[in-house]
């Protein structure tokens, strides 16, 4: 069927009608060009590089790397795990790589903060097998609490770094990163951004070469046990290796000059997504310029930069977020007493925040070079009054029910410490159930501080995956130091926000491995918590009563609000027993309680009439418990 079925077959081993059996990441044949997400290209490269152990903790925009490896781990014969958090994920990979196999770990940018303690010292011991850490940064905070520039981690730790600009480079550089890591015996960072990780494009792939299953650790405590005497000597080793790394960067084919319209005396230095915008902007402006594209960007190849500066009258540095390359280029120019004008963020050409686009780079180049760009377009459609559509908790989301119950129990007279996950969306009205949020696990710790100085009750919300990730030390601290607040563990049995990955409480894990579910209740009890209740948030009365009782306790109290994520429940039998609901318009008094005090995408109020969209209704029945007139009924 279709003109291209034959070509299609050449991509994969499976015939087209067996397609649901197939996974592109594993099945793409050597030499084929396949449409891959940047993240999937990284996963494929890790398989081709022969990783033995791969780990992650999910987080946008990195999640699809781990998800791809989780799906194919069994067939590819690698070990893959969703680790409890990024630090553990990194440590697992360190243990494997120190033994001599190749190991791979991926995470979002803020995950590296969690992993940093391990990573900074691992640069001292160095590695035996190739060790690659992917950090996926998120300029513009599309799905993050900050937009920190993780290239600083390369500088901070002395860790060589690659910055791909495209899915093909994601693939090429990840493979190369393993080679460089083994050559230098150092960990290597591959740093992407949202617009690299989440771009899909044709990627030419090679052959998957399985790595060894086992390798015996060769004892060498003078290298691997970082007592002060060892650490001191290893720091010197690290600095010497960075010199070698700089030579390798100087010779790397990933650091290259791209000529636009034959090149010229104007130079641009760019990396990552910044390169894409710079190239498109230079072409669109009809500029004759050379772009020095840095793919192996740390250590900065000094000799390459010096030569480029010598050959150009002015050099514009195009990089998103922090002026890291720019500062390095300026320092080199100053040190070498070069007259070349270096331009960038210091000259207010480009912002130090948010992701770039072609227009931003065009405007910056125009200002520097005195060019004339197209006048900016006036918005022809006035968006004022066009209803906004921010992300919301789904129809049937158990968090909605929990927040409704908490508001009812406290009459909103409480302070809410929130955490990272779907439930952060409870910040919006009508729940307004988030007052303070900084990072994974912070709800528990900040609740202790809030409770010390506030007279209102303090309630912390944390998801199940986030509780395992970073909530447990905070809870132990609360018991030990006598903090008084209510911790609500919103247990929807999955890591929902990032794509429903398993966590330590799950029963089913990645394809390769059997896992053991760890009980949240047992952990809470073992932390020393004296008051614990488990409720079903769909049962509003019980949940509301539990909250009232919990906030009256003299010590830290814990409620586990347990109900499977509605998006998963929809797909299994538990979802099927729930009943769709409708609003009986003859009984409805148009009081708007169901839209003003509850938030469900299936319930709308148009022209003063409230209705439930049958297609969207998840059948949780929570709204029927809320309606003061019992107008919301089960559909027959």
């Amino acid at each position, binding site marked *: 069927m279709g003109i291209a079925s034959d070509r299609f077959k050449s991509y994969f081993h499976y015939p087209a009608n067996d397609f649901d059996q197939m996974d592109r990441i594993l099945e793409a044949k050597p030499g084929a060009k396949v449409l891959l997400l940047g993240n999937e290209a990284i996963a494929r490269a890790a398989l081709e590089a022969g990783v033995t152990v791969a780990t992650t903790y999910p987080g946008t925009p990195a999640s699809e790397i781990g998800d791809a490896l989780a799906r194919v781990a069994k067939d590819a014969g690698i070990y893959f795990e969703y680790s409890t958090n990024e630090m553990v994920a990194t440590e697992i990979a360190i243990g494997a790589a120190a033994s001599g196999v190749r190991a791979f770990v991926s995470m979002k940018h803020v995950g590296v903060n969690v992993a940093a303690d391990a990573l900074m010292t691992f640069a001292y011991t160095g590695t035996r097998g190739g060790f690659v850490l992917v950090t996926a940064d998120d300029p513009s905070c599309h799905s993050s609490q900050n937009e920190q520039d993780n290239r600083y981690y390369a500088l901070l730790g002395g860790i060589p770094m690659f910055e791909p600009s495209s899915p093909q480079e994601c693939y090429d550089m990840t493979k190369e990163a393993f080679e460089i890591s083994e050559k230098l015996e150092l960990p290597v960072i591959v740093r992407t951004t949202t617009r690299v990780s*989440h771009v899909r494009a044709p990627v030419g792939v090679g052959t998957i070469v399985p790595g060894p299953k086992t390798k015996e650790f060769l004892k060498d405590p003078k290298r691997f046990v970082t007592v002060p005497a060892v650490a001191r000597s290893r720091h010197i080793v690290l600095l010497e290796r960075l010199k070698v790394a700089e030579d390798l960067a100087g010779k790397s084919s990933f650091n290259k000059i791209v000529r636009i319209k034959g090149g010229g005396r104007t130079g641009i230095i760019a990396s990552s997504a910044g390169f894409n915008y710079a190239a498109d902007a230079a072409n669109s402006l009809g500029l004759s310029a050379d772009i020095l594209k840095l793919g192996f960007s740390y250590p900065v190849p000094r000799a390459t930069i010096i030569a480029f500066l010598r050959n150009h009258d002015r050099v514009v540095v195009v990089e998103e977020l922090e002026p890291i390359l720019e500062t390095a280029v300026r320092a080199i120019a100053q040190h070498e007493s070069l007259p070349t004008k270096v331009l960038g963020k210091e000259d207010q050409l480009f912002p130090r925040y948010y992701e770039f686009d072609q227009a931003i780079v065009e405007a910056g180049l125009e200002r520097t070079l005195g060019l004339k760009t197209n006048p900016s377009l006036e918005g022809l459609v006035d968006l004022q009054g066009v209803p*906004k559509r921010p992300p919301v*908790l789904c129809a049937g989301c158990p968090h909605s029910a929990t927040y409704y119950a908490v508001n009812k129990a406290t009459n909103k007279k409480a302070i809410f410490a929130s955490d990272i996950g779907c439930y952060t969306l409870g910040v919006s009205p009508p729940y307004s159930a988030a007052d303070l949020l900084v990072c994974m696990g912070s709800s528990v710790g900040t609740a202790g501080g809030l409770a010390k100085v506030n007279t209102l009750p303090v309630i912390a919300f944390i998801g199940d995956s986030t509780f395992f990730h970073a909530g447990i030390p905070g809870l132990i601290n609360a018991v030990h130091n006598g903090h008084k607040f209510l911790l609500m563990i919103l247990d929807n049995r999955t890591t929902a926000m990032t794509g429903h990955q398993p966590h330590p409480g799950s029963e089913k894990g990645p394809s390769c491995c059997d896992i053991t579910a760890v009980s949240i209740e047992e952990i809470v009890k073992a932390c020393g918590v004296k008051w614990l209740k488990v409720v079903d948030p769909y049962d509003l009365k019980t949940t509301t009563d539990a909250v009232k009782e919990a906030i009256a306790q003299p010590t830290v109290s814990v409620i586990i609000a347990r109900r499977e994520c509605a998006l998963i429940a929809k797909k299994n039998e538990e979802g099927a027993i729930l009943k769709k609901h409708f609003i009986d318009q003859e009984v409805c008094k148009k009081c708007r309680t169901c839209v003003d005090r509850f938030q469900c995408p299936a319930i709308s109020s148009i022209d003063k009439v409230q209705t439930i969209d049958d297609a969207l209704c998840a059948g949780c029945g929570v709204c029927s418990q809320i309606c003061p007139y019992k107008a919301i009924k089960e559909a027959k």
Partner: protein
Amino acid sequence: MSDIYLVGVGGQGIITASRVIGDAAILANKNVLLSETHGMAQRGGSVVCTARIGDVQSPLIPDGQADLIISFELLETLRAMCKANKDTVVVSSTEKIVPLSVSTQKLRYPTLGEVGAQVRKAAGKFVPIEARTLAEDSGVPMSSNIVMIGALAGTGATGLERGHFESAIEMNIPRMIPENLAAFAKGFEAMDKQLH
């Protein structure tokens, strides 16, 4: 060079639709770049995907430079107009997913006529498609995203052939291939009828 801007609401299958475009472009031996929305915005928020077929580096479409705007939801069509110019063809599903803000802030969801009038001010052409009805007619109510891909193919403005899209649909939606191809055909014909 063809710049296609796809908009809609999280959960409407826009990423799948953009993958179909991507695979169709590879089958046609063309370079293609797609960008996708993942993460928090997928929870019922506005989502954007881009597909650029041709020789470019950056996946984002500059303002005013989309050749085609494919909107999977009527209201979202308005939000996409920043990418339109007087030659842009805007294909919009008539499907309405009422955002919570309409209910909670007592705002009004615009009519098809109002959206059409706004779009015609900013773009070259406005083509409404009854995607949900056509999807139901083809036997898979979930396939309105494929109806919209059919409508996109029906514009004839992508430089890709109908067969490329059909093969790409088989590659990306392994279940219920005949029904999805029927949904594609319905979208294709609906567009053909409106344009010619």
